[in-house]
């Protein structure tokens, strides 16, 4: 076998191996009910129990409800945040007076973690569905907004000057030049926003949900069904990973000229 072939095999085997080692360590610690003083594995379910619990959930009609609720909340919250964040970011980045008008309230709101909005959003929205979507929206909004502004600031003024000299009208510059030029930065914002979206959703569901993966995880704790906690956690991880990968794919398809980290 060539050195190159060995390398590519190693590259494929290594991630699998690393996952296997994690599961093995988990199995070792939980089956022996290890107590390390600071942290204890006495109540941690074993991998096999988790697999059984996952299998049960797969058979159950509730899975569809849980997944559907979480996915639609993330989808709504994220899409609204993307729409608001990108359009606000474009005008804030381009016009000084918009920036000076809108940035002070936004700067005050930005450091408030989305989780801290939960009590107020329960009071503000008559339906718990609305309040949860609002929380995911808040979580995703700021990374998207700030990265869009950053992207607009990074557009070379000479690129805009060239476009104007080639006959681009004043407002067409947004669609023709600024948005595509800022697109890589916007995509970064969207990826970060997608991550915070899931984080905020799960927290919101733990507090005010009926159905949803976060709700499922927290409910499993309250009814002492410990294996299900880990099933819920793994589901959240996989959904987050999947949506990030989807976003990456879409970004790549829309920006074939762009390769992160260097010239294409």
């Amino acid at each position: 076998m060539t050195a190159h072939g060995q390398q590519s095999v190693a590259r494929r085997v290594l991630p699998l191996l690393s996952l296997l080692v994690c599961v093995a360590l988990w199995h070792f610690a939980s089956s022996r009910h290890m107590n390390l003083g600071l942290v204890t594995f006495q109540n941690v379910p074993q991998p096999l129990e988790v697999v059984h619990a996952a299998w049960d959930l797969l058979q159950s009609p509730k899975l569809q409800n849980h997944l559907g609720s979480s996915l639609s909340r993330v989808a709504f919250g994220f899409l609204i945040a993307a729409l608001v964040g990108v359009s606000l970011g474009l005008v804030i980045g381009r016009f000084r007076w918009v920036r000076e008008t809108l940035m002070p309230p936004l700067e005050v709101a930005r450091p408030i973690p989305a989780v801290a909005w939960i009590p107020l959003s329960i009071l503000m929205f008559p339906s718990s569905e609305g309040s949860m979507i609002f929380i995911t929206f808040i979580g995703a909004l700021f990374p998207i907004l700030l990265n869009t502004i950053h992207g607009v600031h990074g557009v070379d003024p000479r690129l805009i000057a060239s476009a104007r000299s080639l006959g681009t009208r004043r407002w067409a510059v947004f669609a023709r030049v600024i948005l595509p030029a800022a697109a890589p930065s916007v995509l970064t914002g969207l990826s970060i926003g997608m991550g915070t979206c899931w984080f905020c959703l799960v927290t919101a569901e733990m507090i005010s949900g009926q159905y949803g993966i976060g709700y499922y995880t927290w409910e499993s704790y309250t009814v002492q069904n410990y294996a299900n906690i880990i099933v819920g956690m793994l589901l959240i991880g996989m959904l987050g990973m999947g949506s990030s990968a989807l976003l990456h794919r879409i970004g790549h398809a829309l920006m074939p000229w762009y390769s992160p980290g260097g010239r294409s």
Partner: protein
Amino acid sequence: MNAILSLSELAPAAASTGRLDIDRVSIDLGAGADRFTALQDVSVHIRPGEFVCLLGPSGCGKSTLLGALAGHLTPSRGSLLLDGQPIGCPDPERGLVFQHHTLFPWLSVRDNVAYGLRMRGVGRAERHRQAMTWLKEVGLEGFEHHYPSALSGGMQQRVEIARVLINQPRVLLMDEPFGALDALTRLKMQELLLALWTKRRMTVVFVTHDIDEALFMADRILVMSARPGRVIEEIRVPAGRPRTAEWLTGATFVDYKRHCLALLRDPEVTVPLARLSPLSSARVADTDAAYPD
């Protein structure tokens, strides 16, 4: 020399449009306490089809003047006229080329070149046809589907020139367009630009700080000085067209180069060119005869 120039494909009827009148133009830049005069009381009259270089150190206001001609800056005082009409908003009739990185990275080479036509509402098939013609003209056939980032610096500037010339501008404004290229590529690009200019005869205003480049390209060089930016001397280049390596290595060239260098380094004490090189005035007259207005 005259035999070559009289070939019709090289020199069609002399340009009738593209006359620039820069009349007592001053431009202040910055705001509040940072406000300064970037350009002071500049008057220049450029014939249709003339190739003029603005030569000067950085900060002498040559790019500022170019920006005003393009319509991106408004003069604080004075007037700018193109063929008798005041210059307003940016317009494709005054094509602008920068040093680098102003192609649209998200458009293919062909779509970059066709961009101006698209803005004018020209149909796709016609856009593509014209873009291909221009890509051929600048020697980039076969690269139409590449993205700009896949091209070398010299090739990118070829695309840039095609993208501007496809709009058939009356004036071509260039801001150190070859400044980022290596010496050999720069020479090739200079020759390409001169060939295109000979064929189409648009007015060219070319900003550079490279004396060799100015002497090789221009009919007339306007030497500028900084703080405040102003024109300190006007030099008619006493060489015929097409320019050859002979001109680049001749004694007159060296005299002129030495003079420009002295002007740039020490504008206050430089002796006027006529006294430095008494032969030159005769050649200037000769050149003028070859290029009637």
